[in-house]
């Protein structure tokens, strides 16, 4: 089963909408509530990263009998050094974004902690693809 949701870059007032839609779908499908909680943390962080750091994107959810794969793909500046970006506390967020309480550099570490498998592919000047895989033991 596949679902797709759009993410608007730069628009903080709608940040979290795609994640909220995905959460509703997972609830309807009776996915284990503990797993939903973990997935919600990681997809929200990935969604906000599109809003904060990219221009536009989409969230693709694929549900298999044994796993749930969420791919967040954006058009944006890309990430030059993924290893650096993964470090706790590293952030390039603007002062305005930090004032809102974003930009702690905790998003990617949150994703890592709450996901079985995290794959990030990025091309500078083109965009970023974040793939989250969670197994339904």
């Amino acid at each position: 089963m596949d679902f797709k949701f759009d993410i608007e870059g730069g628009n903080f007032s709608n940040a979290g909408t795609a994640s909220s839609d995905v959460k509703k779908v997972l609830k309807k499908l009776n996915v284990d509530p503990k797993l939903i909680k973990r997935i919600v943390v990681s997809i929200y962080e990935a969604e906000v990263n599109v809003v904060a750091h990219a221009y536009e994107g989409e969230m693709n959810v694929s549900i298999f009998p044994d796993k749930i794969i969420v791919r967040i793909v954006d058009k944006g500046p890309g990430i030059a050094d993924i290893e650096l970006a993964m470090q706790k506390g590293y952030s390039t967020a603007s002062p305005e974004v930090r004032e809102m309480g974003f930009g702690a550099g905790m998003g990617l570490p949150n994703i890592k902690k709450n996901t079985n498998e995290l794959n990030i592919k990025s091309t500078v000047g083109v965009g970023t693809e974040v793939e989250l895989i969670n197994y339904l033991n």
Partner: protein
Amino acid sequence: MKVSDIVEALSLKVCSGEQGLNNEIEGGYTSDLLSDVMGNADSNQVWVTLQTHKNIMAIASLKELAAVILVKGYEPEADAADQSNKEGIPILSSEEEAFELTGKLYKLIGD
């Protein structure tokens, strides 16, 4: 303990989301960093913060928090209050600073 119990005990102002005053509270979390709350708060907690914009409600809803408490007399922005009404997750406001309020909450909820 219900949200209405802490409203009364701590003389909090109910800014929005009144239909959620019966939400059950199980602990709390105090932070102004949204990713910190996303990563570390748990469902049914009350969240103490000075952030007043709509994103606090996105987090409150995704994390299924019991209520959000704004410190130092802050009020929610209009779209945050709207979202709070839609979700039934109250936004409350306290005249106190985060340190004092969190201490009192800890005593109340811990007992």
